[in-house]
């Protein structure tokens, strides 16, 4: 749980820094950490509280609306914790990551469509402009978690 907490915080800050360097790319680093941390079997109330706090911090730092990301992160965490979705397989992980991206984008559009205009072009750019970097980040997080998991064996993330 501590490792997840650290990675979530790093990812939140990294998203902000990253967008200042590569302005055309939309990073989804927090989603990558949520996805990988959802593989832990011992996820419980604390995990959801952690996602809730991460979402609130994200909104406090970057947006104007306080609870949007809190809601989305908790919902995605909940969906990923379903037994039918959980998988350690790398290809399934990538599939799940796309599932997260789509859910996130759809919810963001639903939350913000009243004051933000969207076209298919914009949505496409948000989703796919930074796909390589996002997948690379997912892979790095996956490897780090695996390494930590092996070292501490049965200890929870």
């Amino acid at each position: 749980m501590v490792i997840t907490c650290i990675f979530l915080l790093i990812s939140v800050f990294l998203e902000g820094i990253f967008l200042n360097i590569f302005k055309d790319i939309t990073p989804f680093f927090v989603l990558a950490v949520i996805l990988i941390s959802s593989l832990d079997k011992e996820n419980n109330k604390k995990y959801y509280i952690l996602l809730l706090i991460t979402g609130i911090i994200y909104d406090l730092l970057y947006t104007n609306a306080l609870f949007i990301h809190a809601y989305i992160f908790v919902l995605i965490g909940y969906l990923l914790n379903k037994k039918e979705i959980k998988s350690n397989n790398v290809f399934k992980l990538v599939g799940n990551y796309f599932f997260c991206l789509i859910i996130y984008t759809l919810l963001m559009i639903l939350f913000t469509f009243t004051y933000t205009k969207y076209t298919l072009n914009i949505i496409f750019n948000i989703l796919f402009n930074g796909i390589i970097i996002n997948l690379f980040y997912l892979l790095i997080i996956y490897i780090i978690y695996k390494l930590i998991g092996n070292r501490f064996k049965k200890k929870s993330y």
Partner: protein
Amino acid sequence: MKKKSIKNIVIFIVVFLFTSYISLILVVSNRNYLFIEKIFKNINSYFNSIIINNMYDVKKISANVIDTKTKLLQEENNTLKELVDLKTNNKNIIVSEVTNHVSKNWFNSIYISNGTSSNINKNDAVINSDGVIGFVSKTTNSISEVDLITNVSSNNMISVLIDDEAFISGMISDYDEKEKLFVVTDVMYNDMSLTNKDVFLSGFIKSSHKGLYVGKVVKEEVSNYGLNKTLWVKSNVNFDDLLYVLVIGE
């Protein structure tokens, strides 16, 4: 089992509606930042500012050059105006750096690294060398939020003047994301072709906005059974790459 899933769906919908309502109020309302928001946004702005300054060292120097040059030109302009007995221009022009792009995709706004301590106020226009970028919507002591002009809609139209000689007025009512053109409606029809004419802010809302360059007319069409014209205006601003901006205060 089925009961439980129905209960979950109901909870999901209720929380969704509640969150939408709260977030809508927080975004749309004309509010000030909460105390905790100020703290977090200032921290973020501070760190991003350090990163940007270290990354774009050359651009920082160029920003300083622009700042000095702006002040020099302003002083020169005022001297010349005094010579011909015109009122002097005491506009407060601040060079500021963009410190947050994250909310650009979803909220069409950016954050800049100056606030009320630099005399930035709500509704101040924000420009760069290519034209108008947006207007300050919220401000704290050291950061400000800028709503991008691309978020214009029929609910928040912007008044403009076409052609600095003829002073034809119109309203920017939409932004075509695909073509990257502003749509100017309610332009009084006359026979004169307006293509290639420059478009400026009219300054009806705030006098300091008057004369700020928006873009050039690239297309025109007669609308409303010949009563009006609709114009399409091309802005040179690259809204995807904003690093340093100028805030035009009173």
